[in-house]
């Protein structure tokens, strides 16, 4: 068994080493794959905050992922067509600058998470799972019918957006940028879990009655966790759109909400590095199994099933020998 701290360091180091090796070996596509892992992990870190710290099983996180993606798509679309974006009261021009796009993506998904959270947190348990799913579906169908931004076809952005001081078209530069964002989010998660806020939430999740008795308001704590969670997943959506230079309603689909959840659980719920390990394994499976047979999805399903049934605590839990996070 490996101590969890050491394991966490190894996972991060491995994620950094693969693209560096690929750079040396001139395998640019491997860098692209690693970037995909990083961005999916970032989306899952967002969900992990809601799931792991807040105990909120959201099956609608694709909504935030899609909002982030569309924030990027819409701003960049207006910039590349030199048209103004009409906001009703005033118009703004589009932009190709990543920092601005990230800000808009984060704010927009925070706002959405606030509204969805306010309404959804009136329910709990299975009802919460289903109402978040319903909100995700609303966004999905809205995007499909949104003819102005491509409807089901989505929007193509011909050139990746820019970041001051970097050439984002070079795969390793873009990877570095995403990796840095992921590290920040992981740091935030770790700090949040150990902060008074995180401890209070943990108490609210495990013994709600007692938490209330000592003056904590569980609903407000949960809402805050949900908003932070949505913001991070939204930022991941903006990066994902930039990786593919493309956004479409599939970013909103419930399958995607399911996939992010798979990443979290694969890696180990509530563990800081769980989403990273989960994303790495998922992308690797998708990539390698796909080459073996046309029916590779059967094997993917079987592997997922085995992990749920026999490796509770995910990969991180299995390798570190601790089934529960924080034992």
């Amino acid at each position: 068994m490996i101590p969890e701290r050491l394991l966490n360091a190894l996972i991060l180091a491995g994620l950094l080493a693969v693209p560096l090796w690929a750079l040396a070996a001139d395998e640019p596509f491997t860098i692209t794959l690693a970037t995909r892992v990083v961005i999916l992990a970032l989306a899952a870190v967002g969900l992990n905050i809601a799931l792991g710290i807040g105990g909120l099983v959201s099956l609608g996180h694709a909504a935030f992922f899609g909002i982030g993606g569309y924030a990027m798509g819409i701003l960049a679309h207006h910039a590349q067509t030199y048209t103004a974006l009409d906001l009703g009261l005033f118009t703004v021009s589009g932009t190709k600058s990543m920092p601005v796009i990230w800000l808009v993506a984060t704010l927009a998904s925070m706002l959405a998470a606030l509204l969805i959270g306010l309404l959804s947190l009136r329910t709990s348990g299975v009802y919460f799972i289903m109402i978040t799913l319903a909100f995700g579906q609303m966004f999905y169908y809205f995007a499909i019918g949104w003819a102005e931004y491509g409807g089901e076809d989505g929007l193509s952005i011909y050139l990746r957006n820019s970041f001051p001081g970097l050439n984002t078209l070079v795969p390793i530069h873009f990877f570095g940028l995403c990796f840095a964002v992921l590290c920040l989010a992981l740091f935030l998660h770790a700090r949040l879990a150990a902060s008074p806020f995180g401890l209070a939430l943990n108490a609210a999740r495990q013994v709600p009655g007692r938490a209330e008795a000592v003056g904590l308001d569980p609903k407000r704590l949960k809402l805050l966790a949900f908003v932070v969670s949505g913001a991070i997943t939204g930022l991941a959506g903006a990066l994902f759109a930039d990786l593919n230079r493309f956004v479409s309603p599939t970013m909103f689909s419930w399958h995607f909400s399911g996939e992010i959840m798979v990443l979290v659980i694969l890696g180990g719920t509530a563990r800081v590095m769980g989403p990273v390990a989960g994303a790495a394994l998922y992308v690797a499976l998708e990539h390698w199994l796909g080459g073996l047979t046309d029916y590779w999805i059967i094997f993917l399903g079987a592997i997922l099933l085995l992990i749920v049934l026999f490796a509770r605590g995910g990969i991180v839990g299995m390798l570190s020998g601790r089934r529960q996070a924080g034992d």
Partner: protein
Amino acid sequence: MSFILVAEQILNGLQFGVMLFLMAAGLTLIFGVMGLINLAHGSLYMVGAFAAAAVAGATGSFLLGLVAALTAAAVAGAIIEVAVIRRLYKADHLDQVLATFALILIFSEGTRWAFGSFPLFLDIPDWLSGPVSLPGGIQYPLYRLALIGAGLAVAAGLWLLIERTRIGIQIRAGENDREMIAALGVDISRLYTLVFALGAALAGLAGALVGAIQSVQVGMGEPVLILAFVVIVIGGIGSIKGAFVGALLVGLTDTLGGIFLPELLKLVTDPSTASTVGASVASMAIYILMSIVLILRPTGLFGSTA
């Protein structure tokens, strides 16, 4: 908009709702008794449709196809209950969602492996095809009337089963207190397998009945699954009565929304915009309905407090 058209649309909404009930009844039963969220319920619907298409194709008999659908779905349900689901009862909802999501992947691609990538053929039997005249001059397909009848019959049968039989008493007891009925000597794991197989059979029956007027293809269960979840959440999870009311509400909202929203919008905007915008809003209508119900009643219409 004439009276005939409105009446016909209401019948359509009813028929859709009744079929949704067959799906939702199994889901809600399984949740009520075992506390399990089963995303793979849509796969059992697909299994039923494929079994019916295969057997009806080979024998030429629609009724044999229905029998095959019931049997195949019940057997598939019993097998996954014993092999997989049984290990999930004590797990949290998260693990259940993930494991049954994995089952969807296995079922869908497995079916494609077994039956190929093209849709299968399943048709309405001759003795149920074509329209009939209803009072008021409505021309309505006989098969859809038969679907309404079959769905209502199953609903009544289910009610009798749960309220009037020994098994029903065990099921209701299982919903309330698991330890107690185990202590009273009921074989709880056999009861669970039975309930799961029953839910699966209902899903399979719905798949076969609907398969005759739709496309029998891989992935056909997923849209229905999501609708069925909406239904049981609106009705209150675990409540058969709630599932019935919820199914009719969803069926009517979805059918009538798709027709009347564009018509309403035509009063305020041009026809072309009205039909695209109306279609978008209509596709969101049931989700809006569900959010409103949950915001007003967080455990659904007939749900007990969570």
